[in-house]
């Protein structure tokens, strides 16, 4: 802990630590120092000259004009912001900036949340004293997310410091000099960074604005917001979704110092558009006709009870959802309990095994699970078996910070992702072979001749030496590829790398926002068991919660076939999809950003999210809908005493913490009650099926592979068309060339244009996961 010191700011004594940025110290004490170019995440630049104040080393020393952002706080410092000279100077700066800034506040999309507007009013610059025309620029097309309006620029350099220096993007820059400085791309085109939306927040004026939000613009003061948690991946960034009347308008990141702090990814920022999807369900149905929700709930409950009475509870089952809240899944579990039925949470057994294993490791408390800020401080990073940018985007941004600070980044996976361009060492292996290389690292001994290739041995050796000297090593491992062998290998590596003097942190990238919550559900049944029972006609009633079975890679993906074997099916969801269309009864619920509940993110961190009350019977959250079903089955007593620990495998302390959790808390990490069910020793991966000399590998894309962000909105535009990838050598031996439409229908069920990728392991066919279902417009909307 740095030494505490005292400084005086406009007569007020402020405590801070020695060496803290003077401007930040003032802000921390709640004193507003006007500024543009300083940003807590980006640091100081001294570019805007607005943070000027009279500063002296101590009360008896003469003061002079200084940029507070460029000074470090020292004991006894005296800062005078309200000194007339400093005030005059700041007013002059604003007048200079306003020479060329357009007077378009009334039509500017930044108006109401613009720093320049605030600062101009604060310094009371009111009259324009110049008469010459203003400098103008041409704007650029930057893609479907960010709108560019260069005339509003005040050259604070925040955008380029963020995009290039912080997020390490390479398609954005600053051009020109003096009064013709330009911030943008070399030529028009889609911004390539997955974090481009943060430009909107870092730019203090209206140069970069949200292209979707400005289409149907609202002044920020007309928006209603509630704090929520992003639903588009397992990181769980805190967000502020905004509504105008009852329509969703936009998402901005909300600060949580233990999670995403200042930023978020574009999938999260723009992926919330599903809230306005035209296929939104607004009416309930029961065996055909639309009916009031209460009616459908009552009939569904009666039907479920009738089936339970006729065939026994064993004939009833439910499919929960790793992207539904803890509360909704708990209510579904209670419903099953009250009827004697079973519940299943996952798409297939491999996913279930991998997610439950990774969850067990995460919540056991044995290893340190790295938060995003902790990732930034890592001095060694190993990424195992996936593509961080597509699977947990904000982890990628955090790893970039570690890399900037000098951490070596090692990546072992079948296909290079964007992070590979910053890696110290990347190794391409066939899916599942990650573990054999890591086993070698674990044993630390020379492997038997021929066990590893020369390249693999080199990678392992380099990894051992880099890991050896690290003080804060970090292992990031993918669970999306449903490979328990890889999960185990990452766990054992992190465990063995933890020594007395240092802990090795670990983080798993899970498939969904609440995968960890789903994995902790106590009575979860393996999906393939359930599927076998359905095929055998043993299941008479099936309740599906917020789940489109057609897209999640489950054995139920032929929904029509599966549902035809079940007498009664009920789907609860917020939008019409292939699953709701096949269900006998449909109960609408609120979509994520208009419902409340809690998620457990990849750390097992419980975070509560809130919503605005939206009128309409279709706008109650899934959890409430399910509770009314429980009530209708005549089990309301169960609800009153329900605790999270009844249905989830968590400690009583975690249960108490969960119940006390409030919206906007930093969130607390839920821990497991029982013993850690992890393998005794590293376990080899199950052999992945090889067809025709090729093993399939799923490309998890930032845009395209996540279901909700693909429902609606600009994120759909960023998803690629279907393609397949082969290593050039594999293509050559098959006489296939780049761009050619390759027919892999016999082995992999797809025909798509071929891309050659030298950064794909040989013997692997890479196929993007594209969850782009054609939107279904429900009946009542059509009418």
């Amino acid at each position, binding site marked *: 802990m740095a030494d505490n010191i005292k400084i005086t700011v406009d007569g007020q004594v402020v405590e801070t630590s020695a060496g803290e940025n003077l401007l930040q110290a003032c802000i921390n004490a709640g004193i507003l120092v006007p500024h543009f170019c300083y940003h807590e995440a980006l640091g100081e630049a001294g570019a805007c000259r607005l943070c000027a104040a009279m500063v002296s080393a101590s009360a008896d020393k003469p003061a002079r004009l200084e940029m507070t952002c460029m000074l470090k706080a020292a004991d006894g410092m005296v800062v005078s912001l309200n000194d007339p000279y400093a005030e005059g100077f700041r007013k002059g700066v604003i007048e200079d900036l306003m020479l060329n800034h357009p007077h378009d506040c009334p039509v500017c999309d930044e108006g109401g949340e613009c720093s320049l507007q605030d600062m101009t009013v604060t310094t009371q610059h009111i009259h324009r004293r110049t008469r010459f025309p203003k400098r103008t620029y041409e704007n650029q097309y930057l893609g479907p997310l960010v709108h560019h309006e260069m005339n509003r620029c005040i050259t604070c350099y925040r955008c380029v410091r963020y995009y*290039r220096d912080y997020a390490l993007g*390479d*398609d*954005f*820059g*600053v*051009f*020109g*000099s003096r009064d013709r400085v*330009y911030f943008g*791309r*070399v*030529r028009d085109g889609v911004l390539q960074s997955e974090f481009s939306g943060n430009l909107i927040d870092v730019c203090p004026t209206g140069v970069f604005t949200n292209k979707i939000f400005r289409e149907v613009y609202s002044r920020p003061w007309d928006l209603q917001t509630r704090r929520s948690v992003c639903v588009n991946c397992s990181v769980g960034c805190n967000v502020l979704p905004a509504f105008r009347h009852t329509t969703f308008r936009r998402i901005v990141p909300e600060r949580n110092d233990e999670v995403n702090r200042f930023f978020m990814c574009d999938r999260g920022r723009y992926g919330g558009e599903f809230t306005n999807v035209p296929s939104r369900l607004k009416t309930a149905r029961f065996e055909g006709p639309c009916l009031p929700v209460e009616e459908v709930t009552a009939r569904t409950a009666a039907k479920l009870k009738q089936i339970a009475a006729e065939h026994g509870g064993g004939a009833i089952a439910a499919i929960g959802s790793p992207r539904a809240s803890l509360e909704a899944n708990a209510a579904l579990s209670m419903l099953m309990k009250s009827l004697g039925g079973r519940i299943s949470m996952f798409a297939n057994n491999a996913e279930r095994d991998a997610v439950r294993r990774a969850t067990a490791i995460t919540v056991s408390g044995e290893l340190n699970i790295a938060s995003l800020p902790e990732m930034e401080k890592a001095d060694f990073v190993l990424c195992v078996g996936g593509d961080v940018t597509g699977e947990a985007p904000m982890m990628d941004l955090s790893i970039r910070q570690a890399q900037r600070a000098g951490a070596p980044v090692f990546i072992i996976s079948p296909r290079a992702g964007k992070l590979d361009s910053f890696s110290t060492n990347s190794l391409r292996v066939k899916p599942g072979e990650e573990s054999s290389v890591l086993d070698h690292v674990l044993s630390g001994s020379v492997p038997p001749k021929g066990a590893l290739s020369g390249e693999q041995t080199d990678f392992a050796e380099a990894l051992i030496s880099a890991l050896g000297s690290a003080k804060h090593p970090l292992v990031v491992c993918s669970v999306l590829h449903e490979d328990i062998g890889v999960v185990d290998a990452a766990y054992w590596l992190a465990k063995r790398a933890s020594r007395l003097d240092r802990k090795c942190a670990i983080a798993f990238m899970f498939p969904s926002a609440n995968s960890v919550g789903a994995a902790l559900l106590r009575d979860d049944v393996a999906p393939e068991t359930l599927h076998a029972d359905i095929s055998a006609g043993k299941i008479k009633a099936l309740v599906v919660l917020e789940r489109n079975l057609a897209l999640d890679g489950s054995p139920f993906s032929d929904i029509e076939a599966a549902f035809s074997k079940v007498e009664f099916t009920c789907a609860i969801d917020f939008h019409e999809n292939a699953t709701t269309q096949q269900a006998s009864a449909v109960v609408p619920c609120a979509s994520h950003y208009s419902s409340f509940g809690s998620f457990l993110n990849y750390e097992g961190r419980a975070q509560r999210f809130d919503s605005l009350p939206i009128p309409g019977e279709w706008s109650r959250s899934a959890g409430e809908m399910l509770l009314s079903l429980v009530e209708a089955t005549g089990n309301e007593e169960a609800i009153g005493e329900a605790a999270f620990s009844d249905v989830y495998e968590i400690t009583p302390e975690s249960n108490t913490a969960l119940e006390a959790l409030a919206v906007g808390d930093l969130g607390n990490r839920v821990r497991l009650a029982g013993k850690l069910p992890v393998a005794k020793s590293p376990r080899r991966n199950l052999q992945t099926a090889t067809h025709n000399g090729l093993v399939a590998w799923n490309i998890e894309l930032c845009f395209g592979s996540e279901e909700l962000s693909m429902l609606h909105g600009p994120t759909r535009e960023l998803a690629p068309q279907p393609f397949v990838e082969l290593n050039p050598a594999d293509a050559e031996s098959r006489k296939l060339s780049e761009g050619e439409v390759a027919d892999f229908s016999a082995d992999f069920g797809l025909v798509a244009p071929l891309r050659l990728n030298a950064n794909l392991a040989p013997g692997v066919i890479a196929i993007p996961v594209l969850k782009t279902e054609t939107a279904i417009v429900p009946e009542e909307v059509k009418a």
Partner: protein
Amino acid sequence: MIPQTLKTELTEYVKHYPSERVGLITVMHKLQKHYGGWLPDEAIAEAAEIVGIPEPEVEGVATFYNWFFREPVGRRIIVVCDSISCHLCGCDRLVEHFKKRLGIGMGETTADGEYTLLPVVCLGNCDQAPSIMIDEETYNRVTPEKLDEILEQLSAESAKGES
């Protein structure tokens, strides 16, 4: 496209520096010479590739400095200082004179592609204002008469070079 020999030469050249980006300016000058005095888009991409940095950084450098041109320019570049001392000492008269003699204003190139006229902010010769620069030569205390002499001399040189 630059010839392979030039590409190899430049690629080798930047390797002499501890960090290859240090060689960027020289690479850009050589490319500018190759492309006839200016840097077309492809030259920006080539410089980025040779030095191994993103294109926006090269574009940033190309647009920052006065002596890199992103548009075709004349064979000779005339810059006239229009900063304070030269302004007070009558640089405007020189600009007018260029207009009369060469038929070009600021930012324009003569029809024969010989001269491009550009403004510059202070050539560091304020004590001998007004000051101009033609290619790498600086001329001080310039008057319209002196300008005529300079231009005649230059066109004589050009004629000699051509014959």
